């Protein structure tokens, strides 16, 4: 039976879609504290303000992340959510869970928490919502000792790295995303579990430019698989697509009749750089103009494949809107080799070059993308010791001033004043 009247929340159960209110009511049958979440949320709807307090000092011994303190500011009315801390559980690479592992995690959370979860948070962690301070250490012990799983990152830490499923399932993966993700997770344990930076920092690893983990939009450091050479074309398969013998998009949109496949309309005219055309019955690509958008490969996967010389592009500085607006990451390094043989040393070198600079120059609560924006891309490229290329230019300049550096000017700032004055009176 309902502990609180929730007429406003009840409205959210009336649509045709699944309702979190219904889920929480069902959960309240076994975890009565969930009634108090509903009660407090109803009050927030009435008051038009949150009733959660912000932050706290809770955590587990030795860790400076993974637990987010949350307290009700009306605990006398809703004692079940007096403490309602969030626990972030590191997800397996590529989100491969066994059902045994999932059952173990759910049993753990039923024992120590509200049983409510968020699968997954935007960083990628599995989020356990709602427990009390005294449950944190026993939960952490069971998680690490019985399930051999760890807490994720929070606060000003390196957040839990996340990756797409990469080479385990996907023929387009240009590097082993799961291995890089695992390697860097182990390499940076200190940065994940203890605060290190002016603000949060996120890694995400996508095996190809389809970017299934949205690294370009949601990570400070995005490693996106790409290739250096030409897209591989199977001209016989192109003809099969044109003849309608192969389903476009591997049949992904086969639920309705889209009419006959039209390679001009569905592929060539949609190429963002216009670098494709048909000639003598064959598909041609000017690969120098290709921006790796993946559209043609997605539409005709049996005819087109990424090139053979594979690696990754590094994009830096994406973020959600907190201090400033949301922004995509900026392409900084067009191509880098990603090699297990050198334990990803060249990727690690880039990461640490960014960190060393950002830890020094970044302001409190400033994401690396905001620091880049503040100092400007030319200065950031100088920090990274990268020569600017046309691909770094996003738009024509709007600032009419040109600032020269001493090394860019013949003779530098030193000059013979006597010789100068012979031609130019003071």
């Amino acid at each position: 039976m309902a502990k609180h009247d929730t007429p406003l929340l009840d409205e959210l159960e009336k649509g045709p879609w699944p309702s979190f209110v219904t889920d929480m009511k069902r959960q309240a049958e076994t975890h009565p504290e969930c009634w108090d979440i509903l009660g407090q949320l109803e009050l927030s709807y009435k008051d038009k303000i949150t009733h959660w307090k912000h932050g706290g000092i809770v955590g587990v011994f030795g860790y400076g992340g993974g637990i987010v303190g949350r307290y009700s500011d009306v605990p006398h009315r809703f004692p079940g959510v007096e403490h309602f801390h969030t626990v972030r559980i590191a997800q397996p690479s590529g989100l491969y869970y066994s059902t045994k592992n999932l059952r173990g995690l759910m049993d753990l959370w039923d024992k120590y928490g509200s049983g409510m979860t968020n699968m997954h948070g935007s960083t990628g962690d599995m989020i356990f919502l709602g427990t009390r301070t005294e449950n944190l250490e026993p939960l952490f012990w069971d998680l690490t000792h019985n399930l051999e799983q760890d807490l994720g990152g929070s606060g000003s830490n390196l957040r839990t790295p996340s990756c797409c499923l990469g080479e385990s399932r996907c023929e387009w993966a240009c590097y082993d995303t799961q291995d890089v993700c695992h390697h860097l997770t182990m390499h940076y344990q200190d940065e994940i579990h203890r605060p290190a930076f002016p603000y949060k920092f996120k890694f995400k690893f996508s095996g190809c430019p389809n970017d299934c983990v949205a690294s370009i939009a949601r990570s400070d450091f995005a490693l996106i698989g790409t290739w250096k050479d030409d897209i591989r074309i199977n001209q016989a398969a192109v003809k099969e697509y044109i003849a309608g013998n192969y389903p476009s998009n591997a049949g992904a949109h086969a639920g309705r009749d889209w009419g006959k496949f039209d390679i001009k309309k569905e592929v060539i005219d949609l190429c963002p750089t216009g670098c494709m055309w048909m000639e003598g019955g064959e598909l041609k690509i000017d690969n120098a103009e290709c921006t790796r958008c993946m559209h043609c490969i997605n539409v005709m996967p049996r005819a087109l494949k990424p090139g053979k010389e594979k690696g990754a592009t590094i994009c830096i500085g994406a973020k959600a809107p907190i201090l400033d607006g949301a922004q995509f990451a900026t392409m900084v390094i067009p191509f880098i080799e990603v090699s297990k043989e050198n334990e990803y040393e060249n990727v690690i070198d880039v990461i640490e070059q960014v960190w060393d600079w950002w830890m020094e120059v970044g302001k409190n609560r400033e994401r690396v993308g905001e620091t880049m924006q503040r100092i400007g891309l030319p200065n950031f490229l100088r920090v990274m010791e990268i020569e600017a290329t046309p691909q770094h230019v996003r738009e024509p300049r709007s600032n009419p001033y040109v600032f020269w550096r001493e090394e860019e000017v013949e003779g530098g700032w030193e000059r013979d004043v006597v010789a100068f004055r012979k031609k130019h009176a003071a």
Partner: protein
Amino acid sequence: MAMSVEEVEAAMIEKATKSPKAQLYIKDFYECDSERGPRDIKNIANGLVKKGQMMFWSSGSTTMYALPSRIKNEEGAEGVN
């Protein structure tokens, strides 16, 4: 002459004691030894937490440092960490 780790720790605790704010960002401690890099300072600050002389306070998105004597948790007792 470069400051020893113990001297930097003492400077950090003094700063956390005298600061009008109970909670400090890691960057607030950089000036405790300007010859050390940010990573060194971070490691020393986290070492103080490990020894129980400093505590983390986290909003969930940002982490700050505070002396246990200057910060209480919401239950009214000094925290864990």
